[in-house]
């Protein structure tokens, strides 16, 4: 099989500006992109730098952008790529050190910032903590995260908002919040509630798309938003107010009434800031009707909301069980 690799190179010890270099290779059909890059490094051009180790999707070293999207090079089978040329670039949202090697220090610092370790309460039991089997099984989905950085690379929020804590650290935070043994969930949630927290996610799905281990960081972010709302921790937050306004209005009328949505989701001071837009909309006939239309079968919509609410499970926490005195 012939492949054409187009690799973005950068050498801080030479001119320092990025440039493209192409490599034409003949490789066996089963080759991954990592196999091909190793072949380049070993046989064609020893100056090519990249990180790699396990070759089996478990160490998280070899994430890079392949045809514009982050993935593990060892998980990218060349025979599955249908473009004539495979474009290979370092991960995004991180400064380049050399070639495909990026500076991960900011990535780790953000991870450390969330206190990424179990914080249990009370005395350590003599044996194991006794917890429901499915609560541990549920964590597998996040423990699967190999910290490869692919989600951070392609995160749209991070590209414009450098203080955004980012999908990897959020997934880790979720892992502790959902762990029955961890007692710091309220502090953790409050930390996620501030600037750079869960409300800064733009819901773009990139992290879900590119994650090579199906960790679905954005789903975890959304779950934490919901916990913040349910636990009454987010009432003063615009994002939370918007979410509440949206569900209240759609749940009641079956459709979104933009005027009410605005009034319910911002403060009076902020509302004044919308006056000019409001006036212009009115003079151009674009203002939504002041009395919202209720869609004919709004009751059905309401029932959907009720049903989703009742199926959502409260997270199981040992320290709360202990306080409430109920047996595990």
């Amino acid at each position: 099989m012939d492949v054409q690799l187009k690799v973005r190179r950068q050498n801080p010890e030479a001119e320092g500006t990025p440039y493209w270099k192409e490599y034409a290779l003949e490789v066996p059909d089963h080759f991954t992109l990592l196999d091909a890059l190793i072949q380049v490094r070993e046989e064609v051009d020893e100056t090519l730098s990249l990180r790699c180790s396990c070759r089996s999707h478990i160490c998280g070293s070899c994430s890079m952008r392949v045809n514009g999207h982050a993935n593990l090079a060892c998980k990218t089978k060349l025979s599955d790529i249908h473009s004539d040329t495979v474009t290979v670039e370092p991960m995004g949202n991180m400064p380049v050190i050399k070639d495909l090697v990026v500076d991960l220090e900011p990535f780790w610092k953000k991870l450390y910032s969330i206190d990424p370790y179990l914080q249990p309460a009370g005395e350590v039991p003599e044996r194991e903590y006794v917890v429901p089997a499915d609560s541990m099984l549920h964590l597998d989905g996040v423990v699967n995260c190999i910290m490869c950085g692919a989600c951070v690379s392609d995160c749209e929020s991070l590209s414009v908002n450098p203080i955004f804590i980012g999908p990897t650290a959020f997934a880790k935070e979720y892992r502790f919040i959902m762990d029955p043994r961890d007692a710091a969930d309220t502090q953790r949630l409050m930390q996620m509630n501030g600037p750079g927290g869960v409300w800064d996610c733009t819901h773009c799905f990139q992290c879900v798309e590119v994650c090579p281990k199906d960790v679905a960081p954005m789903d975890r972010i959304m779950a934490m938003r919901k916990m913040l709302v349910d636990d009454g921790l987010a009432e003063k937050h615009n994002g939370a107010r918007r979410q509440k306004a949206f569900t209240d209005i759609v749940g009641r009328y079956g459709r979104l009434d933009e005027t009410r949505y605005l009034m319910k989701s911002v403060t009076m001071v902020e509302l004044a800031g919308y006056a000019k837009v409001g006036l212009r909309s009115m003079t151009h006939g674009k203002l939504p009707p002041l009395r919202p239309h209720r869609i004919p079968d709004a009751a059905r919509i309401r029932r959907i909301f009720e049903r989703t609410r009742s199926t959502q499970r409260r997270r199981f926490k040992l320290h709360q069980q202990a306080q409430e005195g109920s047996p595990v």
Partner: protein
Amino acid sequence: MIYKHDVLVVGAGLAGMRAAIEAHNQGVDVAIVSKVYPVRSHSNAAQGGINAALGEGDTWESHGYDTVKGSDYLGDQDAIEILAREAPAAVLELEHWGVNFSRDETGHLGTRNFGGASQARTFFVADITGQALLQVMFEQLVRVGVRMYNEWFVTSLIESEGVVRGIVGMDIRSGQLHAIQAKAVVLATGGMGRVFEPSTNALINTGDGMAIAYRAGARLMDMEMMQYHPTTLKGSGALLTEGARGEGAYLLNAEGDRFMKKYAPNKLELASRDVVSRAEQTEINEGRGVDNCVLLDCRHLGKDLIMRKLGQIHELALELAGVDIVEQPVPVRPGFHYPMGGIKTDVDGKTTLDGLYAAGECACVSIHGGNRLGANSLLDTVIFGRRAGAAASEHSRSLPSPSDSFPLGEAALEQETSRIRALLDRPYVGELAAKVRWDMGVNMVKHCGVFRDADGLSEMGDLLQSLQDRATRVHVGDKGRVFNTNLTSVLELQFMLDLAVAVQITALTRTESRGAHTRTDYPERDDEHWLKHIQLQYRPNEAPEIHFTPVTMTRWEPQVRSY
């Protein structure tokens, strides 16, 4: 630069991080240096689980006996007793630190079956146990706040007259060499799989710690004992966990027979790894293989169990071999996996050099002897990592500060700097590190594989001499300093060649068959002459010195070994 610490741990996998956490808890100034970020370490590749006699009706004696039998009576029984006795506390500690071990329906820890074990005593997190443990160990390292030197490549030990007091290492990011002086050094650098081709191991597993300790004068032990894992994927050689067989998967030959009934009528697929690998290789050699493989059949386990407990190997088989294990048997064969041998230590990780400790895969206590049981390696890392960290801390307390006691950092740094400069200045004569490594690797599998004999081993000895010679002419094409992986690969090649020689010499020396070491010219175990360890002492420019030491026996007399 010259940095100073009381205790320096080299390697940030499970053993290294556990050692560093222990040293921190003992109140000494500890730092950890690793050539990759800690969570990239190869501990994450352990899939199946970790053993402990924690369940009702299980005893440490039973775990100990299984381990001794698994080792084909070459394991030191005092060390194995420690392993088995401390296992329950070690597993519970991991659970308390946050490992989300699989639970049974009552919410208590659940177990799975594993090879060579008389009870289901393997605790696990799906088939990502190593990763789950590594993440949690890293979390604890962050919690206690151990200083990390990440992406540093250690080139040598600072050693003089049998006393070790630090390392010289390269910050890979800048390419600068630095010395780190320490009163005690703990090596926890993991395995040496890249000496063999193919292997289940990661590209970083180049035996650095074993090689630098060996060159500094520490002894290696049991180096002929190299484990071939029975179920590695055809093609890529990726590992498919023993947990699959633990959950009930079959091994089939070309005729569709569960051939293990012939080799291990009681334990079948769950005999110890050396037994299963030998059986597979025999089937393949006698023409009952499928394309140089046998088949691992998981189909009868059902999709639900496979996805819940064997998700990772389902993904690997699908991505790397195009086989959906729910629908089809997957071709597997024995593949190089794990060295039972390594740097000789006592039960507290102390090597034969003063101030030097070792733990985990790079060390040889010896608890694995001739053959390691599955799920005993994760256990080894946490138990002997902790013990080595404690012993190194205690040793460091008995000494004055590193600079006063051992002002050798500068000299060592200068020496390594000129060595590296000479490497970078070598002219190109057509010799590439990758090519030499490849020739070493495929021939090591050929001659030091599942089956060995004097002819093949002698041939390998000659070949290694010529490879050593070629390695002196290997050229570094990348002349830069920043992230020069070409340079590190040349340094690693030298490490690996030293270890390949150690394997070849000890394998030729042991004229019997025991554990993973099967000599077709000496097919029987010979307790009368060979119930002993082989140790090697490095000598520059000549063959290493060979020493024999007795196996420590406590309560288990050698018996005929059958599964």
